[in-house]
């Protein structure tokens, strides 16, 4: 299987993630798109590492770190979402207009 297909897949997922992050009205959906972005980059890294980096495996190591960081970020995101929910009973993004001028 050609490796370009995998790269196309990861860029496609990345763009879906960015689109979803920008245009989502609910916080949880934004968090899911964020995970999608980070994991698409992981696919990319692992593919590149498989093609040409048989000695040092920089891409594989990088992707393990990214998985850990993405997990931490998801945890923090959910903690913030739950504190918003506790204050306001809903987590839609378009209701956050308290801070607009």
């Amino acid at each position, binding site marked *: 299987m050609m490796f370009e297909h995998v790269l196309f897949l990861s860029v496609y997922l990345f763009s879906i993630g960015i689109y979803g992050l920008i245009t989502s009205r609910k916080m949880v959906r934004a968090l899911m798109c964020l995970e999608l*972005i980070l994991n698409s980059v992981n696919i990319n890294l692992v593919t*590149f590492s498989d093609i040409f980096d048989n000695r040092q495996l920089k*891409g594989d190591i*990088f992707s393990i770190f990214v998985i850990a*960081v993405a997990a931490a970020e998801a945890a923090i995101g959910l903690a*913030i979402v739950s504190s918003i929910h*506790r204050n306001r009973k809903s987590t839609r993004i378009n209701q956050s207009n308290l801070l607009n001028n």
Partner: protein
Amino acid sequence: MFNLFLAVSPEIFIINATFILLIHGVVFSTSKKDDYPPLVSNVGWLGLLSVITLLLLAAGAPLLTIAHLFRNNLFRRDNSTYFCQILPLLSTAGTISMCFDSFEQERFDASESIVLIPLPTRSMLLMIPAHDSIAMYLAIEPQSLCFYVIAASKRKSEFSTEAGSKYLILGAFPSGILLFGCDMIYGSTGATHFDQLAKILTGYEITGARSSGIFMGILSIAVGSLFKITAVPLYMWAPDIYEGSPTPVTAFLSIAPKISISANMSRVSIVGSYGGTLQQIFFFCSIASMILGALAAMAQTKVKRPLAHSSIGHVGYIRTGFSCGTIEGIQSLLIGIFIYASMTIDAFAIVPALRQTRVKYIADLGALAKTNPISAMTFSITMFSYAGIPPLAGFCSKFYLFFAALGCGAYFLAPVGVVTSVIGRWAAGRLPFYYIRLAKRMFFDRPRTWILYEPMDRDKSLLLAMTSSFITSSFPYPSPLFDLTHQMALSSYL
């Protein structure tokens, strides 16, 4: 082998100190035997002590001689990282000392939120000497994560949690883009270490052998970093975040990531290609930031928002120095950052000090000159320094920035910068002018009701004294600053 541990002893110290502080805070504040003491000030002072110890460790490090051990690995320490690491530590120590009064007044009981200040400090220490894409991402990301949490740290307040959620989305999005850029560069060149990238990307602009992967990668890294220092076309919610967070957190957010990510970006850009791609983006963002900083703050009525807008504008000025690829450019960037850090600490130390109830609106500052004349003087010194009025440090930094920009041929940028800084400071008929308006309010307005403020506490007044003396003395005697930054700029080009 022991030398390697000595080399990273500042980072090891701060990681251990953070964990011990966290455990200490949690264990003792939930112990029934001691009647659940709120340990905020205790942990706060210990945190300040650990940051100062870290400062001494990082400053007294005899570790430059063994820098060669790190040359092929993730970090490289030389003169520029040495001095550049001290500045965020100083800012962090200043920010922690600003926190104590606001913790008392707002009866803020969570001692864990102070632990979240040394933790991004560690990331800053790792970000500045980072010489590898992996190290850069691994340092930028946990720093941002800690910032999301402390921006949302007042859990009962809707402002604070909303600011935290906006910061999460605004901060995680560029992290993704930055990571994508690192990944594209790794895929196109097969290298993550900046030395290898420097060799590979040397002829990138000249020979015209442009690979689209490298172009995407550099563009994405630049865009991601610009998001994180809230450059203008990409600054969506930054004033909201700065306003909604608790005030010492806003101070921390407007100083610390700007310093460290600017230093990191300058390292990446020197090593990466300094040609058309990056330079045009940075020029455009600097011009847009300067214009925004001058114009958008005119209609503000609250106090923290114009500070946020002015900090965005000022970082735009600083980025002009960075956009040109010369040594004077990097030197002016570093001078600008030093002066910006002290001005911002100054401004954010005064704002929470003037609270009987809470200073949210500018009209509350009316007739400050008659009730607290020294606070009014200090605040107006800071505001005039932001505006760039000659006998103060802000003029010195802006002058050198425009000088460097002219020196590298950016003939459009320097007049735009001068014009926007004049707009920010001058009156044109009836138009509200910006920095001087605050001074006018303080000195010449008569409010309806006289607001009487409590006297400032000792830590903040010490901090204000130090930073305002640095601002006023930097113009008559700038040579230590200039020498320092010249050495830093030279060694970052080696």
